[in-house]
């Protein structure tokens, strides 16, 4: 077939690079591929549609001011109260504790792997960190509830720590997102060209100075992106906070007590058997909408940071 097309082209004075006969098969295949790519767009549309639709119904029952600024979340008891702030504050307190753990540990691990570890060590350690990332979150939840709270936290702080508490959830979620911080930051630091380090050493910098004043700033966009992405993961994490964080929303900062997050509320309430159109059903979508928007902002911010501030080296 191709040979035929070539011979025809040779016969004519003007050489056309187009196939003599249009290949409909090729077009059909391309169409199918576009269709597949469209599924991912459809997924986003589906998520947004399902959330928006029920959220609008929900906001028809509950004034938006009461939802966004109310400090009492008890939607399923009588009389119900729909202030989402306790869930939001719980989510962010757990997220912040997680980042307090993940930022130093993740960045420390990244700096060690990128700047200090020998290639052999790096080759063995990186898969172990990836293994940590591959452990299902329910395992971390089990660990937080049956080991970390009773054996570590209650041993250290005694009775001020209840069996379900925000602190254990936060710390364990922090460990959960260490691989996110470590692996993206390590990639960013490894991508800093060797010539920058050599230049700094040539000017008399010590290893510490070169690492902290040259490599770290040069990789900052990747590092910030890794931290924002880790925060987004911490906010969206469900199983650890559901198992270890408790089911009682709290408008306060007592991390020793139960602290329900947005994800935990959704999982605890939306158990699949709730009646369509019921109050519980609608609250799941409204809280889901708020959660989706928060993580969307964090994700877009992280993508932006990488795009805008990425140093391009030749």
């Amino acid at each position, binding site marked *: 077939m191709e040979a035929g097309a070539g011979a025809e082209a040779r016969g004519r004075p003007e050489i056309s690079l187009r196939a003599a006969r249009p290949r409909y098969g090729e077009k059909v295949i391309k169409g199918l591929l576009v269709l597949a790519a*469209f599924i991912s767009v459809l997924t*986003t549309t589906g998520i947004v549609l399902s959330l928006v639709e029920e959220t609008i119904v929900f906001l028809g029952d509950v004034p938006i001011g009461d939802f966004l600024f109310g400090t009492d979340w008890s939607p399923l008891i009588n009389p119900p109260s729909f202030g989402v702030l306790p869930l939001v504050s719980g989510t962010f307190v757990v997220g912040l504790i997680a980042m307090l753990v993940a930022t130093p540990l993740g960045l420390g691990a990244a700096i060690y792997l990128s700047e200090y*570890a020998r290639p052999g060590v790096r080759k063995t350690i990186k898969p172990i960190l990836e293994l940590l990332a*591959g*452990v299902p979150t329910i395992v971390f939840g089990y660990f937080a509830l049956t080991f970390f709270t009773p054996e570590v936290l209650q041993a250290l702080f005694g009775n001020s720590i209840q069996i379900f508490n925000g602190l254990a959830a936060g710390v364990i979620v922090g460990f959960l997102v260490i691989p996110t911080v470590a692996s993206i930051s390590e990639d960013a630091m490894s991508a800093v060209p060797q010539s920058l380090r050599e230049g700094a*050493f040539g000017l008399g910098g010590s290893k510490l100075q070169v690492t902290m004043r040259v490599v770290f700033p040069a990789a900052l966009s990747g590092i910030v992106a890794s931290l924002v992405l880790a925060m987004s993961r911490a906010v969206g994490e469900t199983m650890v906070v559901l198992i270890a964080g408790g089911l009682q929303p709290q408008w306060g900062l007592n991390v020793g007590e139960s602290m329900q997050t947005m994800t935990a509320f959704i999982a605890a309430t939306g158990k699949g058997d709730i009646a369509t159109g019921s109050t519980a059903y609608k609250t799941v979508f409204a809280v889901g909408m708020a959660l989706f928007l928060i993580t969307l902002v964090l994700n877009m911010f992280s993508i932006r940071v990488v795009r805008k501030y990425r140093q391009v080296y030749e």
Partner: protein
Amino acid sequence: MSAHGETVAAPRGEAVGRPAASRRVKDAAFRLGMLVCLGLAILLLGVLLWDVAVDGADRLSLDFITSFASINADQAGIQAALTGTLWLMAVCAAFIIPVGVATAIYLEEYADNTKWYNRLVEVNIQNLAAVPSIVYGILGLAFLVRGPLSLGPVILAGGLTLGLLVLPVVIIAGREAIRAVPPSIREGSMALGATQWQTIWRQVLPAAVPGIATGVILSLSRAIGETAPLIVVGAATFVAFNPEGLDSNFTAMPIQIFDWISRPSNDVNDYRPLAAAGILLLMILLLAMNSVAIWLRNRFEQKW
């Protein structure tokens, strides 16, 4: 590179007349601090595995794998959850392999990067990869279990929800594998008169298969460890039968483990060891899948 840096740095510092000793101490302390950070992360992984192993090792037996759910902790097993997980994995694979690979091919081989709609697809996939898994559960509940498709809380709905969740991972891995095939292969094929699709199907894809397969296995192992979306989709917690088809109600290993964790335990019925044994079995399954993925990557990796 690090060894090189240190040998240059130390004499320089002394030559300038800085207090070399304090500087060296500072450097060493910093290095130690970074090592401690790394060590803590790995230590936690170790303690976690040890804790689960201690709690669950006694309970993990053939009886545990072949028994169904029971309110008597002594007789309960994980069979329905194990078969449920295998069914979910099959549905998920049947969905993500064609769709994920097709999307990756389109984005790498056909899409014109300057067009806004192609960039939209790309940013969209990046974003989807970071959407919390429980939001996919809400999507599954609203669109698959109820609403337009109204499948009910069945295997098909659960598998597709997990498929949508890990689809971005498959696409990203697939794109990397396809991009790693050098352009010269494509040009050679085209120069011999092959069409674009013939080039992709007979040259690019076979070369990219190991990378794609690795991505698919890793995605599946992420999918079967997910709990939150299945809770929302409505996986059952007490199931005493194996699923018989796509329209069968189901439970899955993480769901069963979650159920055991959240049951109040007492002296007669202690569900904790059951949960730990379930976790061990799940981790063994994941480890096996990951080993296959690593083996594939090492065995068939092509250096061009």
